């Protein structure tokens, strides 16, 4: 893995390699961004809004997003709802089981920073980014389905700008 992951980095430095890498990047990013399969993982209130988004009124499938029950088959994890200290270690395990490249969207105030349970609660983890890296934060309690979709569209923008070289040098670390 060590050498293979560095190929894009060397390739980019080679004469004319930049053009090749850029076009490969575009294809890869396009395919990644337009078929984000998310994991069916909800803990609290936001999970109900996530269900609504997946159902007929808002229809997540239009964005190429289909839910998967297993972390092994999914690229995206919505942390939808409050994460308690008891649950935090399990979320980390789930994240680690996902195949790279993987993305995380923190949905709702609770996942972003404890939400309404920030003060006076002895059990709630104050922000999911203390456990796993987060790409997009969607505030709201709970966010509307449109907000969730907007967050996904933002994530797609982010994926489209990704470079293979960055990614592989990250993972090589």
């Amino acid at each position: 893995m060590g050498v293979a992951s560095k190929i894009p980095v060397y390739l980019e430095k080679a004469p004319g390699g930049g053009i090749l890498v850029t076009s490969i990047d575009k294809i890869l990013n396009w395919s990644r961004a337009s078929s984000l399969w998310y994991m069916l993982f909800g803990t609290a209130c936001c999970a109900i809004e996530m269900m609504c988004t997946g159902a007929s009124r808002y229809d997540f499938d239009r964005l190429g997003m289909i839910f998967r029950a297993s972390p092994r088959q999914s690229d995206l994890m919505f942390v939808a709802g409050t994460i308690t200290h008891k649950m935090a270690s399990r979320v980390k395990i789930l994240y680690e089981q996902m195949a790279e490249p993987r993305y995380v969207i923190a949905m709702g105030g609770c996942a972003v920073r404890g939400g309404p349970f920030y003060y006076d609660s002895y059990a709630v983890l104050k922000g999911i980014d203390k456990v796993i890296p987060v790409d997009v934060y969607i505030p709201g309690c709970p966010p509307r389905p449109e907000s969730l979709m907007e967050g996904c569209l933002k994530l797609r923008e982010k994926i489209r700008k990704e470079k293979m070289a960055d990614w592989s040098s990250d993972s090589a670390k």
Partner: protein
Amino acid sequence: MGMVKDFFSGIYNLVVGLFVTGKHLGRHAITLQYPKERWEMPERSRGVVVLLSDPETGELNCTACLLCMKACPTGAIIIDREKNPETKRWFPTKFVIDNTICAFCGLCEESCNFDAIKLTGKYEFSVFDQSELIYDMDRLAELGRDVKYTPRKKPAAKKAAEQKKPPAEGKKPDEKKEDTAEKKPEEKPDKIETNPAEKKEEKAEASDKKTEDQESRKPEEAKQGDLGLDKEEDKKESGN
């Protein structure tokens, strides 16, 4: 024989099923094509919190009375304030709403007497960086710049205080407001005479007192609110 029967009943079921499918084909789809089309949000919709400002002068309506901060169940609002030496009125120097812990419950809007804070129908505010979600005063005022709102009836005390100054808002008082204004001096004449600036200071300190203003804003509610719960305390505090 049974097989033949099964065969025909199977065909029948298939036809019925196809008929149902066909019926749905002609129907209008209920799906919202989100980025292209949006719902028109109802007026009461509780999305992102904004600070409203006066449409004419462009100044914030907020008088830094700290009521919303006290009403907030999650501690998402933080206000610092200062006193203007000329007008002797409080104004906010720092007004922060932490959208990460806000519950969007609308209690701040309900507690506000001055049309200063409002929950709007905006819902698109996801970010890549968590720290961007803590909105400061400029951001909140910017968001609230173009928000339309119907001004509420003001407490008579505030109205009396503003009569000396040129009317900031060109809104005509409606009938109910006049009712309140008429009733108010009869009930609590001492309040009108107090210096408005001092009044505001008191307000900020005693949240209980504030609710009297709220009650007086709606006379019919004030009647209901007189339940005998803390009635003595009411009197005691209003006597101060």
